[in-house]
């Protein structure tokens, strides 16, 4: 079954340039696609290949390569196979074409990727924020965004002074991890 689909798929994508096919697990086929070729490929997959269901678009950040990887997971209800088309686009300026006119669900995923990674999709119906409407920091899913630092800058941790700890501290014991590893503050008690 898989090999058949593999062959069939190989035949199909022969019509588009810049596509590499790798058969993978059963029902999972991977295509590595040149960014230019993706819309044509998706149209082909949807039109001729019955891959009508866009399951998701995933974005992966590869800061060392200076690239974003966009993965389009499409599923065929007839062939019962999932094809993942991978493209790599430069991290800067991080722009790509929307596939909204091929797959409607793309609108959600593209907006999500725009919010989380800052990739702009031209032609997507809305690049307005949805989840992070009240967030003015950098796109948080980028690898260079350090969530823990941000948290330390914006929040305090709870202050605990239980009796047992006071007692242990008075006897010379106490918290035994390094202060920089400790994730709650132990400031002096409030003047109250």
């Amino acid at each position: 079954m898989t090999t058949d689909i593999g062959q069939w798929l190989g035949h199909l994508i022969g019509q588009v340039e810049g596509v590499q096919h790798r058969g993978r697990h059963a029902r999972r086929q991977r295509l590595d696609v040149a960014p230019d070729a993706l819309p044509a490929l998706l149209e082909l997959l949807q039109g001729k290949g019955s891959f009508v269901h866009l399951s998701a678009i995933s974005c992966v950040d590869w800061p060392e390569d200076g690239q974003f990887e966009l993965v389009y997971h499409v599923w065929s209800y007839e062939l019962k196979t999932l094809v993942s088309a991978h493209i790599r686009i430069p991290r800067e300026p991080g722009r790509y074409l929307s596939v909204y006119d091929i797959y409607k669900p793309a609108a959600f995923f593209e907006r999500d990727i725009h919010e989380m990674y800052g990739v702009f999709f031209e032609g997507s119906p809305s690049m307005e924020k949805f989840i992070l409407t009240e967030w003015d920091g950098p796109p948080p899913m980028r690898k260079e965004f350090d969530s823990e630092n941000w948290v330390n800058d914006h929040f305090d941790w709870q202050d605990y002074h239980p009796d047992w700890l006071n007692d242990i501290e008075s006897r010379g014991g106490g918290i035994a991890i390094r202060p920089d590893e400790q994730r709650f503050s132990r400031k002096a008690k409030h003047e109250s």
Partner: protein
Amino acid sequence: MSDIDYKAKGSILNPLRTLSFFARKPVTMPLAPRVAAERYRGFHLNDWDKCVGCSTCQKVCDNAAITMVRVPGLPNDPVKGVRDMRPAIDYGRCCWCALCVDLCPTGSITLSREYVHTCTDDQLSSYFILPDPKGIHGQFLGQGWRKEADNDLVDHARQAMGEMTPAARIGNFAEMVNGYDRQQAILEASRCVQCGMCHDACPTHMHAPEYIRAIWQDDVEEAVRQIYRTNPFAHTCGRVCTHKCEDACSIGHTGEPIAIRWLKRYAMDSLAPERVAAIVAEQGKAAPSGRRVAIVGAGPAGLTAAFDLAMAGHRVIVYEALAQAGGMTRYGIPDYRLPQAMLDRDVAVITGLGVEIRYGVRIGTDVSMAELRRDHDAVLLAIGLQYGRSTRIPGSEHADVYRAVDLLREVSAGNPLDVPKQVLVIGGGNVAMDIARSLARLQKIRYGEVGVTVTALQALGEFPADREEIVEAGEEDIVILPSRGPQNVAIEDGKVIGLRTAAVVSLRDAEGRFAPTYDLDDVQFHPGSWVIEAIGQLSDAEAVLGSEVSEQVEWRRGRLATDANGRTSAPWLWTAGDVANGPDVVHAVADGHRVAADMHRFLNTLAEVMA
């Protein structure tokens, strides 16, 4: 598909049947909280007697909810792998996933079936608790989730170490243990929970968690770097260390401890000597200080001190009476455990730092201590324990009654030995095993069969020797007779023909002092042509120091009196290694470091005074 048709109109009367619920009882539970299920994940419990304070729970915690707290007064023994720390839990973080339970090496942490805790804002400190067996409110409400075979995530089984079969190894001195390959080493390293018990237990506080992690990350260079932070005898320790670390390993509480020693060996073996030297050189040698240090004895302690002092920029000259460096590690440990080539690598790293070793120079004979003192700013005496103790039983002064260390030295030096078909070894320590197994090999080579009998005072379970040594000796057809005390060496026609032993009744008197008593009705005769005593060693410090210096310094119970840093009452003289502390490579290394640090301090003050 459905048994209700989409087009069905439904009924206005059907719902009225529900009015029958007027006659049915409510399903509401009583207001008081129910008893939770048997494996409920409620608040934490911690069995303080089982807990060793290893902090694995803190590491696996998703949420940094677990904090180790030092509780003064609890047992704290690094050698046994017990710390006086207990986990405290922040219920402002905890998600009750129970991973801390599943990964607890001792199984001390469990969860209770208690689940109600409320407090007002000013009582919020009650969210930070130190779990004990009673639970958050001091009232045990039943045991909930705990570790069972199903959910135990601790990796109990050690990677098997390949070694030569007894048949293959007995006829030669080739190293019998294969060492881990990369795959095995990574797997073995992955078992580590990074508790650091090994670090605490190690006499020289090796950074075992760090190098194990580096090995797991397949970064051998980093591992070597970590190893050399504390131990220049890395190859040696990777093979023959008494691995106190493994005894303390927290995985060892319920499984087999991590093979820390073999991992060290793997790291050292997998790197070419040049790379090792380069990594050591990375640490950077200090600028020459212009101070000169003399070290007597090129054993582990002396060379470790030499390593440290050389790194600190001092000029170090090591005086070694024998032809090669290594001391007991070379002349006391047989090749099948520690190939001399490996020891050479360790020594080469040290000499590579500019440490000069003058071989064949016996202080006290060739050069006097006074001269040494004159030419150097400080002197370190690290001569080890070179002389075997004698049992002093009748016949023990016979020429065919040997001390084990002397024989081992001969074996290691490669001198031919006229080993007889049947030998007897007295002693139950590692030295006894070493000589027994060495002689067994010589016998095998010479006669094709082994004829070694070991008698020891101790019962089998109490032998001072490592367990694996005893097992391996047994595998090599060596007869081991526990609980037998030597009575006399049987001599006939001026030749040794055997040894008489009596059964041991008790080893110690009422006060716990060493005073063996024997059952003289149970005397056995063990035939043999050689009797080898392996019951301990002595030093010849007095001979080395010379009478003049000997009189200057203080002595305590036959040993040089020193302060905690190994400094004797003479301000220029330090002592380290077996001669000062117990007979063990890693202790000697630790000693070397400690003394070198003190000497360095002294040399620095000297420099200031001069300036």
